[in-house]
C-alpha cells in the first residue's frame, strides 16, 4: 500500500511540516510519494526529493493550486488518489482547507489532526481542545488524514527521489484576488524553537508590542498570544495560540500575563519547557508550567531582559 503526502509550501520553499508528515506516512507504509502543488515550484519539488524515505515526487503546477484554491487542489489530488491507500496532509490552515474536500470526493470519513499512527488503519487524534484523545479505526478504501506536524519528528534529508511532472486542475467558480502576508524577520510561530506569548494582562496593543516583542527578538523567538489578547485586539489573529488558533510545541514557551484558559493550554501544552509569568499565583497556567514566576510582568520582563544580558 502506498501513501501520498501533500507538501506544505509557498511555491518557493518547502516547509518542514512536510518532513513531519512524511514521518507519519512512513509509519503507515514504506512507499511514500510527495505531491507538490504550486506554480514555479521546481525548487520545492527538488527539496521534497531530498526527504529521507520518499519514493518519488509529483510536481503538479498551475496558477490556481499555486494560490491554494481548494477546489483546484482537491481535483488534482483526486485525480492521483487511485494509486494510493492513504492521502496525508499537514494540518495547517492550507491543509485543512482542502483535505476534507478530498475525503468527501472519495466518500471517506476524514481523520483530522492525527497525533499518533497506531497502525495502518488506526490513529489517535485530540478532541475537545485536546482534553480527550480519540483512537479511531477506519475501513475507508482511501484514507484521508490531516497530520498535526508538532506531534511528529521531521524526517531527515539525504534522499534523491525522482521528480515527475503533471498538470494541476483549475477552479471554475473561485478566483484568487489578493493576499496580504505578514512580513516578519521572526521565525514562523509553529516552527519556532522559542515562543513568547502575551495575554490579556497587556491591556493594549502598544503595551503588547512594547513588552512581548523586544523579549521575543532578544531570544530569537516567535510571538504568540492568547485568544483573550487577540479578541481584545492587542495582537493580530495569526498570533493566536490555542484550540482555535495555532498549535505549537517549541523547546521553550514563555507565557506572560496569560491565565491559562483550557483553550490556550490546548495549543501549547506539548511544549518541552513552559515558563509562566503571572501576578496571580492561582492562575491555571502555573499547573502546567515547569518554571513559574509569580510577579507583575511590568517588573519581571525588564528584569528578564536584563538577566539575559
Amino acid at each position: 500500500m502506498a501513501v501520498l503526502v501533500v507538501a506544505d509550501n509557498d511555491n518557493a520553499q518547502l516547509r518542514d511540516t512536510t518532513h513531519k508528515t512524511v514521518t507519519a506516512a512512513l509509519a503507515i507504509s514504506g512507499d511514500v510519494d510527495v505531491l507538490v502543488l504550486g506554480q514555479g515550484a521546481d525548487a520545492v519539488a527538488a527539496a521534497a526529493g531530498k526527504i529521507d524515505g520518499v519514493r518519488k515526487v509529483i510536481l503538479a503546477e498551475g496558477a490556481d493550486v499555486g494560490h491554494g484554491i481548494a477546489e483546484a487542489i482537491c481535483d488534482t489530488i483526486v485525480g492521483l488518489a487511485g494509486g494510493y491507500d492513504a492521502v496525508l496532509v499537514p494540518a495547517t490552515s492550507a491543509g485543512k482547507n482542502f483535505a476534507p474536500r478530498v475525503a468527501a470526493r472519495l466518500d471517506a470519513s476524514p481523520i483530522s489532526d492525527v497525533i499518533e499512527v497506531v497502525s495502518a488503519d488506526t490513529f489517535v487524534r485530540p478532541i475537545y481542545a485536546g482534553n480527550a484523545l480519540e483512537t479511531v479505526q477506519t475501513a475507508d478504501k482511501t484514507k484521508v488524514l490531516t497530520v498535526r506536524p508538532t506531534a511528529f519528528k521531521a524526517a531527515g534529508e539525504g534522499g534523491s527521489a525522482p521528480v515527475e511532472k503533471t498538470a494541476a486542475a483549475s477552479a471554475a467558480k473561485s478566483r484568487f484576488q489578493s493576499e496580504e502576508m505578514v512580513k516578519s524577520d521572526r521565525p514562523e510561530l509553529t516552527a519556532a524553537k522559542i515562543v513568547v506569548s502575551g495575554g490579556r494582562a497587556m491591556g493594549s496593543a502598544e503595551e503588547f508590542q512594547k513588552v512581548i516583542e523586544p523579549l521575543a527578538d532578544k531570544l530569537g523567538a516567535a510571538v504568540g498570544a492568547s485568544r483573550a489578547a487577540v479578541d481584545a485586539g492587542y495582537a493580530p489573529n495569526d498570533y493566536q495560540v490555542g484550540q482555535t488558533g495555532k498549535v505549537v510545541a517549541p523547546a521553550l514557551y514563555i507565557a506572560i500575563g496569560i491565565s491559562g484558559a483550557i483553550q490556550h493550554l490546548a495549543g501549547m501544552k506539548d511544549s518541552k519547557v513552559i515558563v509562566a509569568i503571572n501576578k496571580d499565583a492561582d492562575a491555571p497556567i502555573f499547573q502546567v508550567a515547569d518554571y513559574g514566576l509569580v510577579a507583575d510582568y511590568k517588573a519581571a520582563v525588564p528584569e528578564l531582559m536584563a538577566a539575559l544580558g
Partner: protein
Amino acid sequence: MKVLVPVKRVIDYNVKARVKPDQSGVDLANVKMSMNPFCEIAVEEAVRLKEKGVATEVVIVSIGPAQAQETIRTALAMGGDRGILIQSDTDVEPLAVAKLLAAVAKEEGADVVVMGKQAIDGDNNAVGQMLSTLLDWPQATFASKVEIAGGKAVVTREVDGGLQVLEVDLPAVITADLRLNEPRYASLPNIMKAKKKEIATKTTADYGVDVVPRLKVLKVTEPAKRSAGIKVENAAELVTKLKTEAGVL
C-alpha cells in the same frame, strides 16, 4: 437571497470535557451545553446580511438530539427566521452531516450556506469543505470578512501567515473564523418572539442519508497530565534555571 446556517449543540466552551471512566467517550450528562461558538458567529453574519438587505431569509438547521431545538431557538432569537431540526440520538460523523446538509440546501434552494469553521467537540474542521464538494459549490473557509453582491461573494480568509481575498460565485459555502464578527446577545423580546417561530422536525431517514459511522472509536482517553514544576523567586533565577537545568537557552 436565502441563507442556510447549520448550528451545533456542543459542550459549553467554558466547561472542561471529562473522559468517561470506561473510555467510551466524553461525559456529557449534566454538563452545560451551548451553541458552538463558531456557529454563533455564522448566525450573526447571516442576520447581518439580512439586516443589510442582502439576504431575505435566514434558515437555521441543526442535527442532533431533541434538545438541539434549544440551540435552534437561540439562533432564532438572534434573528433567524425559521428552523429545521434533523433529530438523531446518535453521533453523526462529519461526512454524513455534510450529506444531510447538502440535501437540506438543495431542498431549500439556498443561495449561500454560512457556517462555523469547526465544532469545538469533534474539532474536525471538515463539514463546510465537504458540503461544498458534495454540492459542487465553491468554498470560502475561515472567513474574517464577507461581502456579497452581484451573485458573488468576496471573502477575506485567515490563511497561514496572513490574509487571502477570494471571490466565489454563488451559491457557495462560507465558513466563519473567530474574527468575522462579535455575535450579539439575544434581547428578551427577541427570545420571546423566537418561541413562536417555526421549527420543522425531521429525521435522518427523511433525507435518505446513511448515517452509520464509518469510523470505529476504539477508545477515548485522557491526555497525559503535565505536572506543575517549580516556582522561581525572580527573573535572574529563571534565566539561570533555563540555562543550566532545562538547557533551553
